[in-house]
């Protein structure tokens, strides 16, 4: 239970970053993002994405345009704004920092473990 909880907390923290990351490659519409996120098991229920997208848009990090669809109603295609890109770079560096820290911690821990077992 605690593990699941911790996992979901981690995912939640990651979600915003991942969405921005996805959109930095190419503008896409919500269902595409959902598919990608589901593959990565970052979201459980699809509805979670929409409040997030709206919030990012309202914060000026994202913008969208309507595109006609061959099937069904027109779709909203989201893309990063310049402000969003700046924001993403910030997050990128933060992530890199985090991952190095985690990696560092892990290797250090491993070394310690190894030393303790060898001893």
């Amino acid at each position, binding site marked *: 239970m605690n593990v699941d*909880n911790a996992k*979901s907390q981690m995912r*939640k923290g990651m*979600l915003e970053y991942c969405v921005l990351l996805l959109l930095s490659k190419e503008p896409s519409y*919500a*269902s595409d993002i*959902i598919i990608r996120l589901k593959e990565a098991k970052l*979201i*459980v*229920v*699809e*509805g*979670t*994405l*929409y*409040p*997030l*997208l*709206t*919030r990012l*848009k*309202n914060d000026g990090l994202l913008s969208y345009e309507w595109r006609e669809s061959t*099937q*069904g*109603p027109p779709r*909203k295609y989201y893309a990063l704004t310049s402000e969003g890109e700046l924001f993403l770079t910030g997050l990128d560096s933060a992530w890199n920092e985090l991952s190095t820290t985690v990696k560092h911690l892990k290797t250090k821990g491993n070394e310690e473990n190894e030393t303790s077992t060898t001893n």
Partner: protein
Amino acid sequence: MKKNININFFGTLYAIDEDAYELLNRYINDIKKYFSGKEGGEEISDDIEHRIAEVMQELKAEGKEPISIELVKEIIARIGKPEELCNATDEEEGENSSKAHRGKDWFTKHISKKKLYRNPDDKMLCGVLSGIGCYAGIDPLWLRLAIIILTIVPLPFISVSLFSALLVYFLFALIIPEANTPEERLRMQGKPVTMETLNEEIVGNADGTNNTNVKNSKRGSLFDVIIRICVILIKCLLVIFLGWLLFGGTAILLICTFVICLLSFAMYGHPLELASRMVDADSILLNFIGTNGYAWISGVAFIIATIIFIYLVAHCIARLFNKGKSMGRIIWVYICIFFGTLILGCVSFYNLTKDIITEEDRIVAFRESQRYQTDIDREKEWLKGHGWEVIAHEHGDHYVKMHEHYSGDYSKQYIDTHSNNPNMVYTLERSVRTSPGIYTLEAAVRTDGAGPEIYAYNYRNDRLSTPFPVYAQYGGEIWEEATKKMNNTSTATDEVKRLAEAHHGKGYGWSRIRIENIEVKNDSIIRYGVTNRSGGTGYWNGTWFSAADFKLIKVQ
């Protein structure tokens, strides 16, 4: 077997089971409600709705039509329940469990409150008692028994108890809405309205399994049979009662309308009354706005009240036979309009009758004014009949009066006139044939100012006169004498008593005066009279005078 409907969702047609549609609709509404208060909420719920359409399109492409309730449940699980959605955006949330709890709180706070509905699943008549039972957490059986006892057991005031019970039931059936949707059914039972419970309610209802009430009413015990018979009896009574109500109420209301119309017609048809209104032109318009306006308002109000009344009672009867839809809240509008128009009608009617009374007064006043003219003629007639000749009558308002005769007899007439004009002249004269001799003229008189006198001519044509003593409207010598006589029991006859008690014991101011030694010779005619002016043309400083009881007494 399931009912299947077609819906148009963002331009695409889907075949969907009815229960599935209900669930889906409810879900979308919940989403909308949930996000409605939040920033950008409309956009979010709109996006989610689009997403649902997309998922349904996928299903359609896969050939999974008609969409069943299971598929809708899958969609809901995939998109997420409203309370699951916002967590991702809320910056710092607690644990999962607390989130779920929060969601539930929101539901219990806003949606799931126990509400009073009529229960359509377990009803005998309209489901009123069943609904109340549900609300109060009592088995409706007990309520039914109580009502049956109240209705049927012979109490001293049986009719009162019977009809009040029926009337209350009838009112409740009219006012309490029926729980028709799954949501309403849940609220009736006091269960929280969440996706799960709603699901259960819809699915359960469709399968007809989780409805314990249905099982209840299907019991075939003897007891149940008795209840059913009672229900039929009550139903009959209720129909009779409502029938009478419909008939009687409509009759009363129609009679009111009719009476109003009749009254306004009657008031405008009377020629005399019409003439009286012509007397002052201003009042014609006033009358129209006042009287006729009230007649119109109350007439129309009563007609509206009648129509609504018929509609409501007819609706109630239809509902007894499970025909016609529940009106819901709109019934209050009807009830308000009914009582509003009824009150308006009654108030206008009251004003109308008030106006009629004043109208009658006007007629009376008009007749009085007409009678006045005829009275003057009658007065002259009376004078002529008594041998009086009017020598002069200027500015005086009348000739003869009654009500203030010294004897206290209201019906006795006497010579009288009145005017505030100082130039008033009133002189009457009488010639009487008698045998020769010496006579005394006697008369009862009164006045409020000096001037009046009685006079007589003797055979030499000398004018003899005696002025009136001035007592005005109180006392007088006649009264003074009578009151004196009253002190002595031997002289206190009935006649004296009457004189003393005239004008509530104050007297009317009458005195008896005389002219003595009127000699009559060969021609045998005696001429005498009464005037308000000393010497026939002299001074006068009063406003009225009276005279009566002229008597010629032969002395020699």
